[in-house]
């Protein structure tokens, strides 16, 4: 797949899809989406890149091994559960920090969000690990 169009297109697509996947994840609490769906789309973005440039290039672009992503994601999810323990509440109890940004806009930071980010990372890492491992052969 050495077509320049594809390469250019996939670079563009990569950016758009990655952003879209983050968007899907972040809005998941209120609308269809969430860590899993977002993660799949994100993984698809990188996988597409890998198909266009080879998995080595994709890995280099990522800078971090997909297996590491999995580990970090797991850590994030478990950590989200631990936040509640610090407050003396049960494991995985939702913690919310709502920061007003003025004019009615607000930023909702929360442990469920962190949890969902963990899910996102694990999904991206998992799918990429699988795809890279299959591609490698």
């Amino acid at each position: 797949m050495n077509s320049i169009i594809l390469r250019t297109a996939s670079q563009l697509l990569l950016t758009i899809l990655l952003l879209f996947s983050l968007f899907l994840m972040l809005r998941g609490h209120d609308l269809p989406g969430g860590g899993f769906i977002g993660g799949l789309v994100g993984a698809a973005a990188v996988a597409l890149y890998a198909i266009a440039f080879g998995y080595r290039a994709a890995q280099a672009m990522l800078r971090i091994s997909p297996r590491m992503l999995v580990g970090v994601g797991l850590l994030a999810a478990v950590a989200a559960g631990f936040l509640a323990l610090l407050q003396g509440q049960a494991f995985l109890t939702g913690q919310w920090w709502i920061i007003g940004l003025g004019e009615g806009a607000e930023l909702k930071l929360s442990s469920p969000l962190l949890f969902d980010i963990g899910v996102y990372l694990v999904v991206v890492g998992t799918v990429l690990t699988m795809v890279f491992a299959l591609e490698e052969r």
Partner: protein
Amino acid sequence: METPLAVLVGVLFASGLYLVMQRNLLRFVFGLLLLSASVNLLIFTAGRVTRGTAPIIPEGLPTPPGDVANALPQALVLTAIVIGFGLIVFAIVLVLRTHERLGTIDTAEMAERLEAPRPVATDLEDEVPA
């Protein structure tokens, strides 16, 4: 709409069962996929289905305005789909690897291949005596 869905559950389940009882491991994998689809659909159906609204609360309201679809089975099925995905991909890769190391994906031949002194190998480095 539960009745036709229940019938579909049965058809998928039966096809899956038939396929997992085959000698060919690839067929086995397909059977597994069908079984998975069948039970996912079963959970979905068991929570009763409605054509109404998705379980999403509109802006500005604290709770859904009227009847919405049952959210719990959806969440369960979502989890089950994801878990099934992980398991089945692992199974596929295992079949692939078994094919490389034993030279067959026929369940009736696998044990014999194990006894063969020289495996049918695709990658020679595997054959360093373990």
